[in-house]
């Protein structure tokens, strides 16, 4: 009862408040976002591409993630679903021209996945709040609520989102019972392993990387590993000019 009443009130309230209210709230929220609220986390990741490239053709993190989350292996690139993958440098960083840098660096692929932006365009456009930003910075997905309109896919500047064009089950050899699969018609992406973080574990990709190329932690904690790494070395973020403020940092 209480649930229904709350839902009803929310519906009525939101409808009345309307666009003006929504836009205003977003502006206020955005302006307060940079000042971290005490006690909240800002989960982030730092990637060291040099370490990542140490072992040629290594896909440990991708394998671990896709196995842990029942991500189907669909060969057809048009129907493909992926949470974390290797992208060519010019695709991951189209605004970073590096013509004269050693080709060994720019010809190699870059590890990419959801950026868990501070100001995520996918969340802004979702008509059902099936994707939203948690207080700790994770851009979450609710696969029970997604209607499959793919507006978030159009809104994401990083191509991080995949749509289930068909039922993914036949493409999974042995799904793990620890994580749901998805159904056809919903959008999915990396959720920063919210299910593992909830248990105090590191994300699956971080744990799987033997070269320790991925560092995960809380940006609001000045002593965290991510902050220490970012203090010492310069890092890039994908399409920083768009103002999305990604949480994934690439060391230069």
């Amino acid at each position: 009862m209480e649930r229904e009443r709350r839902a009803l009130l929310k519906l009525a309230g939101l409808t009345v408040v309307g666009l003006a209210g929504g836009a205003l709230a977003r502006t206020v929220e955005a302006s307060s976002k940079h000042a971290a609220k005490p006690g909240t986390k800002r989960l982030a990741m730092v990637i060291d591409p040099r370490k990542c490239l140490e072992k040629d053709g290594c896909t440990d993190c991708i394998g671990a993630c896709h196995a842990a989350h029942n991500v189907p292996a669909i060969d057809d690139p048009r129907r493909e679903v992926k949470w974390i993958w290797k992208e060519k440098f010019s695709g991951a960083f189209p605004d970073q021209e590096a013509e004269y840098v050693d080709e060994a660096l720019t010809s190699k692929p870059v590890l990419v996945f959801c950026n868990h932006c501070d100001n995520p365009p996918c969340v802004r456009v979702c008509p059902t709040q099936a994707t939203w930003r948690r207080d700790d910075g994770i851009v979450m997905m609710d696969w029970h609520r997604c209607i499959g309109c793919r507006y978030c896919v159009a809104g994401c500047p990083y191509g991080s989102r995949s749509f289930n064009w068909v039922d993914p089950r036949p493409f999974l050899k042995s799904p793990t019972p620890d994580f749901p699969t998805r159904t056809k018609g919903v959008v999915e992406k990396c959720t920063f392993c919210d299910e593992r973080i909830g248990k105090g574990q590191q994300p699956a990709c971080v744990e799987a990387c033997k070269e320790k190329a991925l560092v995960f932690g809380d940006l609001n904690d000045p002593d965290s590993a991510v902050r220490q790494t970012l203090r010492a070395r310069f890092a890039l973020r994908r399409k920083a000019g768009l103002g999305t403020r990604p949480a994934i940092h690439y060391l230069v």
Partner: protein
Amino acid sequence: MLEKALQGSRSYWGWVAFLAGLILLGFIAYMRQFAVGLGVTGLSRDVTWGLYIAQFTFLVGVAASAVMVVLPYYLHNYKLFGKITILGEFLAISAVTMCMLFIFVDMGQPTRVLNVMLYPTPNSLMFWDMISLSGYLGLNALISHVTLDAERKGIAPPHWIKPIIILSIPWAVSIHTVTAFLYSGLAARPFWMTAILAPRFLASAFSAGPALLILFCLILRRFTKFDAGREPIQRLAVIVTYAMAINVFFVLMEVFTAIYSGIPEHIEHFEFLYLGLEGKATLVPWMWASAILSVIALVLLINPKTRGNERTLVAACIAVFTALWIEKGLGLIIAGFVPSPMGAVTSYSPSIPEVLIAVGIYAIGIFLITVFYKIALSVRGEVKV
């Protein structure tokens, strides 16, 4: 009033049966899509919206264009449009219905579509599009019903309907503005992220819609006793001329800004449309056909002689409608996804089930127009029962 649609000549029933056949085909194709998923379409991870969303966008324009007959009649008291306002309103109802169906068939989880109302999200433009489209549908349904009912009884329409009609004018502008905002607010898609998108949508709507209305008037004159009269059709033609000229002007402004600024991610989309990218050029012949048709249409429309001649006017209207259908109903949406934000160039062409579903929805729209126009003309005694 509905009973008027249940009596008709053989050719009327033949036409209805033909449309019903197309609708059935579309329905069967949709059942397959419902069972298998959107994998039956030609869409892909990179091109996630295609034929359905493009038709939706184009038809929002057709729906909004009703305002081009309603506004002169009710605001400027231009009496000659009195006979055709109802045609415009019925066209709007059918077009909005088609829009909603196109959105519906594009959903990956159609059974959950009411989540949009269950979890209203004002920061999503899709929420506002739902409100503006359903509001517009309601307004036009109410207005056409009340005015036609008054006409049947031979009395003046009630006074309270006037403010509602006036409200429908800005509302028509709003549906296409909100639809443009769906696209123009996305930083991820430079091709759409242009402030002129909404004005451009309105210009193309106000040329394609009235062009269609002219064609309808001429078809009706041929097959029924209804005659819109020469003067209103000529006035509509002037509206089409101005709107089409403005639309072409806007498109050229887009091309200039993209090319002169030299920003690759803006140019690439135009390259894909008009020259082809990485050997992928499925849209190139279409886009050039659209450009050539636009020029032909403008020449025929701007010249008073050819605009005044009904044969050339028909050609001009068909050219306008086809050119804009290609521009908005094919090019505009697809090119937003090619190249992708990662620079990938992916070809898209709709699959057979996808085309059948789209044709089925158009058949539903044309069926509605047929029935509505039949009712309207029967009420006026302009068609033999």
